């Protein structure tokens, strides 16, 4: 009259095992789910009743109590439908008990079909870590779960299949997935090619540096100069995701329920371009119950593009400050706090003024000083201090526009970027979770950014002259490190520092 199965709860990108207990007692017919269930878990009672009835079983009479333990962890989502239903079948002797511990997750439809759920990848990880023998998941999530080694994945389609599997009447081959193969599937084709953008050599060079070191970039220029086009080229300049990075990204997308069906592993770098009306919860993460990941986490190991930067709510932009430094975000809500990784390259684009033509040779700017001040005030000093590369994207001269000169292709740039990234990987081997120069810690900067004597003198002068903050100083060093890496040099020379300093310049026409 009692049964116990294992399932799991997703907390951020981690998971913990949940014991699903079911007890049948005599008395008036009731069905209760206890153990801090959220609304959607309590609602599962109706789905479970119907699914059991429509799968050829009968729902037991009397008092049915399902408990989700530990009782102090908030239970969200619809993944508990299947384990609760199976526990009820075992408790009511309609299914013989199983000995082997397996993690079970899945949503039930009224007809007994099992539907996919989000967050299966973290659950599979946890199951493997806790030494569980197998995983019973909706077949929709099978390929995703199979990415994890050390635990067998059994995909099922219906409640009765799951029951037969537990009983031992049905044998399913554990699903295997070849992760290496999936990663190598990246095509050599480039959809947004740098060669398609005329002129703008300086901006392209900055893009290459940003790609090589993962640095933040701010494009500033009049409308139609190509800022957005340039930004869209960035993801394809970046090297392919390593397996470790791909799994990191996939975990986040799994939790967010954004994995495409049949494509279990996110193998291309994310490019997220939220509209400027985005709320702060949408940007950094939030939502009821356990907070979900926001855009900054969805662009982990990829690019977050903020077009029309000053149009964003100032509060939203300010929330970016801390994750830009920490490369992760801690979301604390009543009773629960979760940490999401958020190591992204920020690319922003803005006009120099509200009308867009400040400093433009052909169009007069029609903004008043007041307008200008108001526009500039939307971006705070601390926020701008976190940008590594300030790049002007001026109107294209007529000769460039009609010239026949063909620009360099993305594929060529990608090779240089890949070489520079390889140097960084070698250098940072051993420091977990850090892959690029932009992610260098202060200690990392001290050990890896060795300056030649002259370069040190130059940087020292610049710090006094431009009043660089300590953070600004560190950011110049990181960029200089990347420029040196692009040239394959071990030591940072004055020319690298000089170029890096050149990009610290604030947007054109900023002189008040």
């Amino acid at each position, binding site marked *: 009259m009692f049964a116990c199965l294992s399932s799991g709860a997703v907390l951020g990108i981690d998971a913990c095992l949940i014991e699903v207990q079911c007890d049948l007692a*005599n*008395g*008036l*017919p*009731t*069905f209760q789910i206890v153990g801090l269930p959220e609304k959607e878990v309590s609602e599962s009672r109706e789905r479970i009743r119907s699914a059991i009835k429509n799968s050829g079983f009968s*729902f037991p*009479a*009397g*008092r049915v109590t399902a408990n989700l333990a530990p009782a102090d962890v908030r239970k969200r989502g619809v993944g508990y439908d299947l384990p609760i239903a199976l526990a009820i079948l075992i408790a009511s002797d309609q299914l013989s008990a199983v000995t082997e511990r397996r993690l079970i997750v899945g949503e039930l439809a009224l007809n007994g079909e099992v539907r996919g759920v989000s967050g299966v990848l973290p659950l599979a990880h946890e199951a493997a870590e806790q030494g569980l023998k197998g995983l019973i998941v909706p077949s929709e999530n099978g390929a995703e779960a199979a990415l994890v080694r050390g635990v067998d994945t059994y995909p099922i389609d219906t409640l009765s299949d799951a029951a037969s599997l537990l009983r031992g009447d049905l044998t399913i081959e554990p699903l295997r997935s070849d992760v290496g193969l999936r990663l190598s599937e990246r095509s050599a084709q480039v959809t947004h090619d740098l060669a398609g953008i005329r002129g703008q050599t300086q901006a392209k060079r900055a893009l290459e540096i940003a790609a090589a070191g993962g640095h933040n970039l701010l494009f500033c220029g009049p409308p139609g100069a190509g800022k957005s086009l340039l930004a869209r080229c960035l993801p394809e300049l970046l090297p392919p995701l390593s397996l470790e990075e791909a799994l990191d990204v996939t975990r986040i997308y799994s939790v967010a329920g954004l994995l495409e069906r049949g494509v279990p592993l996110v193998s291309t770098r994310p490019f997220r371009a939220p509209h400027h009306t985005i709320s702060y919860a949408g940007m950094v993460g939030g939502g009821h119950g356990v907070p979900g990941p926001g855009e900054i986490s969805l662009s982990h190991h990829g690019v977050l593009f903020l077009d029309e930067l000053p149009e964003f709510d100032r509060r939203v932009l300010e929330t970016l400050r801390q994750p830009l430094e920490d490369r992760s975000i801690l979301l604390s809500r009543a009773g629960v706090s979760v940490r999401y990784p958020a190591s992204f390259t920020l690319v922003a684009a803005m006009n120099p003024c509200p009308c867009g033509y400040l400093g433009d040779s052909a169009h007069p700017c029609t903004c008043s000083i007041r307008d200008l001040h108001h526009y500039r005030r939307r971006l705070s000093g601390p926020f701008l201090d976190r940008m590594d590369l300030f790049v002007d994207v001026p109107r294209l001269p007529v000769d460039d526009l009609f010239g026949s000169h063909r620009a360099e292709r993305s594929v060529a740039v990608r090779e240089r970027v890949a070489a520079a990234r390889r140097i960084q990987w070698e250098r940072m081997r051993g420091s977990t979770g850090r892959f690029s120069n932009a992610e260098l810690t202060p200690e990392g900067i001290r050990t890896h950014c060795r300056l030649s004597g002259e370069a040190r003198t130059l940087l020292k002068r610049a710090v006094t002259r431009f009043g660089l903050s300590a953070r600004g100083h560190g950011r110049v060093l990181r960029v200089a490190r990347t420029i040196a890496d692009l040239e394959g040099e071990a030591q940072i020379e004055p020319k690298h520092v000089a170029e890096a300093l050149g990009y610290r310049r604030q947007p054109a026409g900023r002189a008040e």
Partner: protein
Amino acid sequence: MAKRPGTRAEERACRLLRREGYQIVARNWRGRFGEIDIVAREGAIIVFVEVKARSGDGFGGPRAAVDAAKQRRIALTAAEFLQATGCELAARFDVVTFSGSGATLLRNAFWVG
């Protein structure tokens, strides 16, 4: 006591339940909150049966007559019955309906809560 309206329907219901293999335990069991038309046993389950008859299918037919308030009253009475008799079986609620189109037995017609 004069014959209550619906008694004929309850007798028909008892015959139907016996045919289905139920054993009738009590009829018109009265509690503080109301009355249960038929208490029966089916195997190891004690079944509380509500009988509803309507001459036509208008107004949603007889099933619609067992609404939430009625269900609550039946549940309270059933709880009283279990306590009074010391019965320790799993319980279930069934509804037997009679209408123009014939008799229907609804097993597991509703739950408590």
